[in-house]
């Protein structure tokens, strides 16, 4: 497949979001946009229809990444969601698994982890 993978990054820490953007670009993927809040994220993903979403679980509000993922999957069930979380504790993992994730990455994320998750 020569078509570049398209990615939307949902992350509420802006520095980490930039890190992910740079790392994805270096892998050859196309980053379509960055969102930091649930509503913004759902709208952006709906409009841009990326192949992948890098989804931070904690978004600092009432709704979290899993809520966003579930909302997206009702519209586009094919989008592959790579969850990014700082916690490897069972409650968090269980919650993420509610939305049949493509992959779960635990922070800190190395470029190798990311490449693997995106299928490079």
């Amino acid at each position, binding site marked *: 497949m020569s078509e570049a993978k398209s990615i939307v990054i949902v992350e*509420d*820490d*802006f*520095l980490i*979001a*930039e890190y992910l953007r740079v790392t994805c670009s270096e892998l050859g993927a196309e980053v379509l946009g960055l969102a*930091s809040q649930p509503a913004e994220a759902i709208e952006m993903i709906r409009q841009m229809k990326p192949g992948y979403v890098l989804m931070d679980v*904690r978004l*600092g509000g009432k709704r979290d990444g899993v809520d966003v993922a579930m909302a997206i999957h009702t519209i586009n069930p094919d989008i592959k969601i790579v969850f990014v979380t*700082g916690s490897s504790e069972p409650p968090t993992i269980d919650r993420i698994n509610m939305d049949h994730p493509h992959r779960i990455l635990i922070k800190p994320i190395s470029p190798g982890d990311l490449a693997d998750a995106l299928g490079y």
Partner: protein
Amino acid sequence: MPINDLTQTGASAGRAGFLLIVATSICILIFGWGLGSETAIRIRPEFAAMVPSTAILFLLLSAALWAFARSPRPNNGKKALLVISSAVALAALIDLVLVVAGIGTGLDAVLWPGLLQRLTDGMAVATATCFLLASLCALRLAFDATSIDYPFASMSTLGLVLSSTALVAYALDTEALYGVFLFTAMALHTALAFAILFLGLILVAPGRSWMGLLLSQKEGSRGARRLLPLMLFGPFLLCLIALYATDAGFLSVNFRLSVLAIVMTLIAVTAVLRNASIENTAEDDMQNIVNDLTAALADRSLLLREVYHRVKNNLQQVNAMLTIERGKLTDPEAKASYEAMAGRVHALGMVHQLLIQASNPSDIDIPNFFHRLIKSISAGHGLKSRNISISVEAEDDIVHLDVAMSLGLLVNELVANAIEHAFEGREAGRILVTYGNAGPDAMLLTVRDDGIGLDDENDLGTGSIIVRSLIKQLRGEMRVVTDEGTAISVVFPSTLSEVSRYV
């Protein structure tokens, strides 16, 4: 008053009591005054009679109370209760006036004098008083109460005491009871009915009086319930025994009083001591819990400081490795990059250092932080030799550690940029960092220099992605003004500290 099984049972019992009174009054009216049964009217020939007015008032008031108490949303019942209670109160008042004024024996003498058989038959003063008390309580019931209703509690308790007094007197010495003007003509079943009525009133609204204390599930109430039978019936039984003992010749009349006094004192003192013991145990339990909590809190603070310490160490290690790598490089631009990185890592480390020392392990004092940061930056860049001075004017403010991290990194970036680019070709320079309020909910951070100024906003160098990210993190807006140097201002909401990102 939290509802529990006991309060439900109590309320049902109260309602059953009302119904019982309704039934009994109907019987007394029909069998007693209608069909002439002496037993129904006065139970024993030498006792006082329950006159028709009394029976009717009992019937009306109890029926109204029963109807009101049984529906959860008593709106219809409320109006009926108000009307009937007022009517009963009025009747009782009229009777009181009549009796006290000496016009016959009260209402019945006026309304149906032919029915009455004896001169003493009539609504007793105590009876009328009790009806007054009961109807006033019923009136108060019609209006909601969220806590103790002192008028209700005192009136219903008084009524209970009056009727109990009559009952006890009937048990111990009926003649003596009739000697008291208050109680002459209060029939036995009248007294009993009043006791049930007042008890019912208290039970259907336990939150308004001391009944709530009895019915609660807490330890104190349970203890009270255990003790209650003894305290309720103990004195009465004691007096009964003393009475029989005197009649049988074992006890002289006056010594009887001493015995009663001593025994009742003993019972009371025992109850008081037992209560003291229960309260002491409760206090000990409370103290243990407080101790556990205090220890847990101290542990948490200690743990946090340990974590910050480790993070600070890790950041120092990162800086160490950056410095080592920098040593291997020859390209000055690359070396400058590593130095810039070291500066950023150092700023983060400083936040953790301050957190370790802070009294509240999640807040940072801004003036202190900025002063130390600037001092460190000055020393790091050798600014004394370059004649560049940096000063800080920061208003007192304490922010959440997340906000402090972003602000610290931002100040570090902007100041480093100024040092790097603002004074090319200049002999000396000044940089000023200010921080303070900028309106009701906004804070303003400004880094100003008197250097050569910027060509356009995008000339901030490679640090600009970082700067913009940090500003977005602060949900802030940036403004750049070039005028005898450069002033970069960032406005951000002051409520940021109240919202912690990493919940």
